[in-house]
């Protein structure tokens, strides 16, 4: 028994362990989900995240240990974001065709994202800090944390809300858009990218390159616009 505990202690600290476990869990969830009856709400990202949270809690492993090893994957998010330029370029003619509607829709979508949080935050009487940290929840994490800091929210909590928005959003986006009969992949991609930043874009890329291109563009534009809009709105509304 002691040997087993020793082995666990060793494995837990080796740089490979949590990285490999993350990859294995992701592969396994993707494998299982592929074989389940088509149920669009379930996705490998959500399943893997939940399983790993449970494993860390059960084994009483600090997040620091986990991220020190699995953080390598997170590092790749930077180049992956840059690489989004490639599906965008491949769909450049389609983007150009829709440029005017996209640019008109962008500020409207941004304002819907911000004002809906503002109104609902007031209704639910969440604390000021919570409300402010929720405001940039449709914005990609690094921008959202910067915004939260600027408006005196809590950057780390804002990052959690961004992630939760991505998780909740990937669950509800497809059924909602089907219900409202939005079938155009370009429109679906843009709406998902604007509302669900990188996580939504990642999901869209699994569906089609075209949807992914529109999603990536929406994510970049909404992130940049919100960085200006949210601090202004908070300043004027107090």
């Amino acid at each position, binding site marked *: 028994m002691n040997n087993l505990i020793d082995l666990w202690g060793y494995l837990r600290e080796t740089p490979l362990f949590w990285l490999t476990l993350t990859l294995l869990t992701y592969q396994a969830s993707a494998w299982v989900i592929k074989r389940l009856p088509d149920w669009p709400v379930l996705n490998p990202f959500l399943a893997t995240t939940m399983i790993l949270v449970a494993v860390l809690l059960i084994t009483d492993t600090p997040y620091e240990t986990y991220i020190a090893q699995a953080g390598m994957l997170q590092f790749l*998010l930077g180049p992956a974001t840059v690489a989004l330029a490639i599906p965008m370029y491949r769909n450049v003619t389609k983007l150009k065709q829709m440029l005017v509607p*996209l640019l008109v829709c962008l500020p409207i979508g941004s304002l819907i994202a911000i004002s*809906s949080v503002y109104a609902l935050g007031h209704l639910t009487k969440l604390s000021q800090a919570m409300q402010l940290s929720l405001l940039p929840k*449709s914005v990609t994490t690094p921008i959202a944390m910067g915004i939260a800091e600027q408006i005196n929210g809590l950057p780390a909590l804002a990052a*959690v809300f961004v992630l939760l928005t991505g998780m909740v959003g990937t669950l509800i986006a497809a059924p909602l858009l089907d219900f409202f009969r939005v079938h155009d992949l370009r429109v679906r991609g843009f709406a998902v990218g604007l509302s669900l930043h990188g996580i939504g874009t990642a999901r869209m890329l699994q569906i089609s390159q075209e949807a992914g291109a529109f999603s990536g563009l929406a994510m970049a534009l909404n992130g940049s616009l919100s960085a200006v809009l949210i601090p202004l709105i908070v300043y004027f509304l107090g």
Partner: protein
Amino acid sequence: MIGALTLIFCFQLLGETISHLFGLPIPGPVIGMLLLFAWLSLRGQLSEGLERASSGLLDNLTLLFVPAGVGLILYIDQLREHWLGIAIVLILSTAITIVGTALTLQFLQRLPVLLNHKRREEAHE
């Protein structure tokens, strides 16, 4: 492939430099993406290596979000305490944003067709 990866990293570094230099709130990778997009548009072609490098990075992009997602473990107590309010705001506003944006864009996209149709009807009368 290595050349393409080098190019991607160079654009990220360039983006980070610009973001830092001008104190912009927009993160380096996002600036890098817009610059690479502009560069490709100017050049007018895509190398095979770049295609392969980008699909390597993007095909399983959701995997790269897992470590950050697991980070919610740090805030489990706060989330548990206010879960109802947070759930209401998160779910409703996310749903409103997705649907609102999609319907707005769909309307804007169909607007020229609708206007044309109307104009033609008027001309007919």
